[in-house]
């Protein structure tokens, strides 16, 4: 066996102590009818052979294209210091810090994570952490339901489709209602429709959910939406992208009660979907409603400052069926990645990352427009936007052959929307190069010619 220490002698010694001749004796409590004989799996592999196999699989993935795909997950420059800290066994082979005396490393990094995200969002209470942006959004919706004791949530149509889907799943169990609000031609949420929906006295709204930037990369009128929600006694929930918070108004500034989002852009690799980092932040008023882990500052018997998990009465292991959520294992190591990333990149660096993305995206917009694919929407964007491309899906496939991953064909997400059938959602970040932009524009130009 690959990693076990037990030699033949060791097993013999243990069996002798137990007075048994075979380990089979320890499995006699499994009724004979349901005892398994053996598994039909491949034989063990030597580490060398396995390493070769894994290398072969990784090499089968193609990650060498010029990529303009974002749609919620963004390629950023991650300083190597981040992964080198993550590779420290003291962090990644520890468990949830249930014994604070010998877990101050994890506890303090979580406290720092909470603090850093509080700086970014402007909100005071940050949980650490949720599975991903989608589940954090769903938990935010459930928080609104609990806090308002209402059962209807409004969500903009311009929200990431997976987030909508997951929120729907999470609300489905409790028989809660999720209503989608339409968008305007400029790509932002229709506030008049929102206001009307909020006005329905029969069906009071628990929370209103908008993305900033929204699923089309556009900047929403968050302050107005927030006011409308509050006027109707609903909570306002912002789904945010954390790098953008280096330059955009904070959820606190526009009055959001809860911010949810995907922390992947903060130093976490794309990995075909995870592990990522669900961000969830809220106000002090809603502190006791937030699900997930919270670490607080305290003192030890000698008066030394130290950190400890706190407000545990919200959690499943204490409250069982009355808990704020069933979450247990979360994404702590990803929160550590975000913490190291933010410490390494600093406030100026993060602002530069966000601004560079905006500048590169603008360069992309101009190049693509010249190639014949203008923007689809007119609202301002940060670093992602939709372009109008006839037969977008077919063009997208042909561009792959030319080494360009031309973003996301929005028809994949909005199959029923005729306008979005001919649209690609593209993004740029600080790692996008001018050469890649030229390559994309040239290839697209040829396809459209």
């Amino acid at each position, binding site marked *: 066996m690959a*990693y076990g220490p037990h030699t033949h002698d060791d097993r013999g010694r243990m069996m002798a102590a137990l007075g048994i001749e075979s380990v089979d004796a320890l499995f006699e409590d499994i009724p004979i*009818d349901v005892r398994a004989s*053996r598994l039909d799996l491949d034989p063990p592999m030597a580490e060398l052979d396995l390493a070769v196999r894994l290398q072969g699989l990784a090499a089968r993935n193609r990650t060498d294209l010029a990529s303009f795909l974002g749609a919620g997950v963004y390629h950023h420059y991650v300083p190597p210091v981040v992964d080198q800290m993550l590779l420290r066994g003291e962090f990644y082979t520890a468990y949830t810090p249930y014994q604070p005396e010998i877990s101050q490393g994890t506890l303090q990094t979580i406290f720092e994570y909470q*603090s850093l995200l509080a700086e970014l969002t402007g909100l005071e209470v940050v949980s650490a952490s949720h599975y991903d942006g989608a*589940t954090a959004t769903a938990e935010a919706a459930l928080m609104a339901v609990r806090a308002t004791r209402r059962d209807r949530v409004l969500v903009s149509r311009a929200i990431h489709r997976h987030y909508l889907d997951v929120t729907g799943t999470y609300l489905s169990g409790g028989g809660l209602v999720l209503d989608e609000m339409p968008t305007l031609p400029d790509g932002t949420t229709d506030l008049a429709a929102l206001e009307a929906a909020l006005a329905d006295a029969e069906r009071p709204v628990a929370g209103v959910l908008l993305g900033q930037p929204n699923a089309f990369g556009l900047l929403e009128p968050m302050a107005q939406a927030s006011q409308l929600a509050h006027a109707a006694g609903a909570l306002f929930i912002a789904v945010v992208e954390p790098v953008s918070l280096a*330059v955009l108004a904070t959820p606190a500034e526009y009055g959001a009660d809860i911010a949810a989002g995907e922390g992947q852009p903060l130093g976490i690799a794309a990995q075909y979907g995870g592990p990522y980092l669900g961000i969830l932040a809220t106000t002090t008023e809603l502190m006791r409603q937030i699900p997930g882990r919270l670490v607080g500052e305290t003192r030890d018997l000698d008066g030394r400052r130290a950190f400890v998990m706190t407000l545990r009465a919200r959690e499943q292991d204490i409250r069982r069926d009355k808990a704020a959520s069933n979450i247990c294992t979360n994404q702590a190591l990803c929160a550590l990645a975000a913490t190291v990333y933010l410490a390494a990149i600093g*406030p100026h660096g993060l602002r530069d990352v966000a601004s560079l993305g905006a500048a590169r995206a603008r360069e992309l917009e101009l190049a693509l427009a010249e190639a014949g694919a203008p923007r689809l929407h007119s609202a301002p964007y940060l670093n992602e936007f939709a372009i109008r491309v006839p037969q977008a899906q077919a063009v997208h496939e042909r561009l792959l052959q030319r080494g360009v991953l031309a973003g996301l064909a929005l028809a994949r997400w909005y199959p029923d929307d005729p306008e979005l059938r001919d649209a690609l959602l593209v993004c740029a970040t600080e790692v996008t190069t001018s050469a890649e932009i030229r390559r994309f524009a040239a290839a697209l130009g040829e396809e459209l010619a």
Partner: protein
Amino acid sequence: MTDGTALATSARVGAAMAPEEARPGAGRQAMNAALQPTLAELSRPGRGGGKVPHPPADALARIPASALRSAPLALPELNEPEVVRHFVNLSHLNYSVDSGFYPLGSCTMKFNPKLNEWAARLPGFATLHPLAPDELAQGTLELMHELQEALAEISGMAAVTLQPAAGAQGELTGILMIRAYHAARGDVARTEVIVPDSSHGTNPATASMAGFRTVTVPSAADGGVDLAALKDALGPHTAAVMLTNPSTLGLFERRIVELLDAVHEAGALAYMDGANMNAVLGRFRPGAAGFDVMHFNLHKTFSTPHGGGGPGAGPVACNERLAPFLPAPLVVKAAPGSYRLERPEERASAIGRVRAYQGNVGVLVRAFAYIRAHGASGLREISDDAVLAANYLRQRVGQGYELPYAGPCKHEFVASGRALRQATGVRTLDVAKRLIDHGFHPPTIYFPLIVDECLLIEPTETESVETLDLFAEALLAILTEAHDHPERVKSAPTSAPVRRLDEASAARKPELRWRPMTGAGTPCPT
């Protein structure tokens, strides 16, 4: 609120935590882990920078002012050397599997192979975008497909989703599938989920999240489910029974056949919490035995790192009956040797997604490597060794502590400090804290709730018999200490970076972040 000033403005890094005589400097106390200031306290305006190029000045010119931050972002400003020291020194404050024995019951703190950390970081795996078209993702898709099949084989189930991000999310997935199953049959009166009183907290919490009422049934004297009580609770309102097997007492449910019959007879479905599969790989296949659906904890059974609290992965396996309800997309075979994600319309009865994209794929890579390293024989050996080690340790610990349940145990066992407490006033909490001074991470304590002064001890298969002996000796030595020097045990730990914490005041007046920073209005470092 963090009292940043005392630490930060005096520039006496760590000075507040000085041990006797020696005052730790920026070098911290030489070798013994010392507490650290926060990033905010270490920050100095103007430090850091240089990671990314500067953007053009007009980069944000097109963004309306109303959408922009009104105050500049304030984050700590540090240079890379300080960042590294901060996290390296913080890491020294952690106990971890890589540095010692971590017999935390219910958590399966086994060794995390270093090959797997390497594999998950291979650029082909690490940089693949989750929305990349299938043709760009063939390597990962092949891996996921093979993992789905392997988990189906291990569980004896028909189909597997890898989407759930953790065990609890696997539970939610499974229970929502059960809900969808009953709903599809028009069987809408089933509003209850039954759990034993020994169940993990996530089980009832999941049932609630899925909109069910939780009904708790007691355990029998032997630690198994009280079958009569279960039968009483079962009825036309029962949607499902959730059973952790082996249980959180480390016991295999001996009356499993009868139990499953009763569940099914009542028209309910049987959910198995498979978090403890480490005990029965190749020995017990839940699907073959009659469970309808289960989840795995890859971060326990298949040794993906716990990461200080996550990430994990909680794949769900189910039988043919429930397969139509698995959340999409599964990975399916396309042309020979090629793979693709299911298309949204392919399985209309699927419940909605439980998370974005395809799941914690980086975790799946590690679990795949682990399963392939061991193969069929190796997986069985894992369980054999885990169970053998647990029984051996159980016997040794039983030389001084009560063992409330008869053996054999599976991967873990409970012991009780009740008698000790009665005799000396020393509680299980004290014993646990004293173990820290003996060099060990304490076991899980006061869980499951049904055992008085409970210790839940799980050695796993990757700890040597020498280590087991030393741990048992430490536990027994503490018994003696508890009689001879009870204060010593009650005031433990004394060798950790901090002594016991004031958890009550932390909860009463929660300080959940450092004092808000100001500034970063400083000029950008060049």
